[in-house]
């Protein structure tokens, strides 16, 4: 059942991606409507998949790496749907949906053992859910930051070309960038606190020597800096987009790379 839902969701994502791309090229709103509807269907199937998976295992479904990748994709999709509906940010589909599709593909190829009983704990559930909501939002803010730069360059060049009509205004993108950043940062803070509380009780030795924890704190620091220059000094555009790119690279490292350095964050 879960596999069926997953495959169906994947199929609808691909349909949505295709229509987003055609809509982007032709600028015809009908394609964006089809894209939105297919992604909405895919999102429902995707949510169904997560629920059914939890029911089948009779456990919280956001612990194991494959589940987390699927949840990552779910968060990004949710952002896409909101930006599309509330802000008419149609072009976002072309840039976010391939990432959603890639994350979904990732769940198929990644090998993972079932989660040990140690992780069956409410603090861990809160930790993983919040962290991956944050990652999804950071990915979205990273993409929007880049698109902001693209639109800004086009406006600066005073020659409207490819993106002028296709991307929303700088004002809208800036607002979305800031929103996803604030929410992402909030979730990350919650997730980190939950993780630290749990690790402080459970882990032997100090939690702050773990490479993944250090990487996560580093990432958190980068986003703290980004929020600071954005909200207090009012920076926007080039430098903010650079910091957000850097932050997202740090997210990827924390998520994928830090475990190579060992530590207690590997559960088998």
């Amino acid at each position, binding site marked *: 059942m879960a596999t069926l839902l997953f495959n169906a969701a994947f199929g609808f994502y691909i349909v949505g991606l295709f229509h987003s791309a055609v809509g982007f090229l032709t600028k015809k709103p009908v394609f964006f409507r089809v894209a939105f509807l297919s992604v909405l269907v895919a999102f429902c199937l995707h949510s169904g998949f997560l629920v059914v998976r939890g029911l089948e295992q009779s456990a919280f479904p956001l612990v194991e790496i494959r589940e987390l990748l699927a949840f990552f994709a779910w968060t990004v999709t949710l952002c896409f749907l909101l930006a599309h509906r509330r802000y008419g940010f149609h072009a976002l589909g072309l840039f976010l949906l391939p990432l959603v599709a890639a994350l979904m593909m990732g769940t198929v190829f990644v090998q993972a053992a079932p989660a040990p009983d140690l992780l069956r704990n409410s603090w861990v559930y809160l930790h993983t859910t919040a962290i991956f909501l944050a990652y999804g939002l950071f990915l979205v803010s990273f993409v929007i930051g880049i698109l902001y730069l693209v639109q800004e360059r086009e*406006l600066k060049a*005073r020659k409207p070309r490819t993106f002028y009509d296709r991307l929303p205004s*700088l004002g809208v993108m800036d607002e979305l960038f800031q929103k996803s950043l604030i929410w992402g940062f909030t979730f990350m803070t919650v997730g980190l606190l939950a993780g630290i509380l749990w690790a402080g009780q459970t882990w032997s030795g100090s939690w702050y020597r773990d490479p993944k924890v250090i990487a996560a704190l580093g990432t958190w620091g980068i986003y703290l800096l980004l929020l600071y220059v954005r909200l207090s000094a009012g920076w926007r*555009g080039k430098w903010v987009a650079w910091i957000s790119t850097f932050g997202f690279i740090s997210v990827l490292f924390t998520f994928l790379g830090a475990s190579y350095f060992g530590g207690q964050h590997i559960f088998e």
Partner: protein
Amino acid sequence: MNTLGLIGLSHKTAPVEVRERVAFTESEVPQALGELCRDFGFQEGLILSTCNRVEILGGLSNGGRPFDRLQQFVRSYHGLRESELDGYVYMLEEGDLIRHLFRVASSLDSMILGESQILGQLKRAYSLACDAGTSGKSINIVLPQAFSVAKRVRTETKIAFSKVSVSSVAAELARKIFGNLEGRTVFLIGAGEMSELAARNLLKSGAEKILVANRTGRRSKTLAEQFRGTAVRFSDIERFLPFSDIVLVSTGAGSFILDHDMVERTIRRRRYNPLFIIDISVPRNVDPRINEIENVFVYDIDDLESVVAAGMEDRQKEAEEAEKIVTEELKSFLSVREMNHLGCIIQSLRSTLEEICLSELKNFPDLDEKERNQLERCLKRTAHRIAHPLIQEIKNPLAHPVERRRKLAVLKQAFNLKDPE
């Protein structure tokens, strides 16, 4: 009539580096025109120098070919070597020259088809030539005609950018930058039809506050009342810049009103909130380097027009329509000119023949008053009778123009007729 010749370089034939080297600033033009007429033997002259084209029009009375002299003039004025302009320069005379002037005035030869500035620049060039006393009979006929063709093209086709389309594109760009214009402040520096239109458009799109600064305080007050905005003293511009989101500049000042440092300070005080500056003035009132400052967007009138052009379909069709008008106008202009020319020749043929016949009178010194009058009338009639078939022949509307010109030439030679002045 003087024979006109034109040499020029434009964005179509020469890169900007070459055009720059032969450009004339407005203050140089009167002196250059003087040199053209004094040192190079031209009876008339006109210089059009814009960032996209440099054209020099010269008229010679003795029917000599003007191109060599025009080239010499350009080379000597700008200190260029013999072959430096080879391949960049076009040379036009007769019908081609007139068609070219009509097309330039109608903005059909412009980089951005239909842009609005070239007509003004051409008018300015003409008035400089008039002031310098170098516009003669030929230029005084051709240029005003070019202006009227341009006017016809502007009114009968959609090729020309309307002030409305340009000002609405300004509002569109503002929306592209700020998203929502609600609560935004528009700062109107100087006034003009286009900037007032743009301000109105911005208000319609949701902008809330208007600040107005004008050199004459009273004008600021009236404008401010009109827009229900606030009048600001001209010297206080920098103080109010940080509170403005969209700045519309259009004054007649010859220098920059907004400079780089001022805007850099402003953007810091705005905490890097975007600032959209629209410069509608010619010459420009906003330092173009300001566009390099992060989060500042500077558009001048050319930029706005190129945005309009990018968003317009069917421009090619409009251009074809405009070309048709130019061709039609050229034909009627040339035929009127030929008719005038013909009229003058006919007049001079009649009077020459009359003179020849009347010269017989002196062989009859003994006639009394009455007889003398009779004979004079008779001789005049004879002269007209001889002239009549000749005139019919050259006026024949069915004759091919080349054939007609040939006959005209024979007649002119036979009776030693002078070209009309």
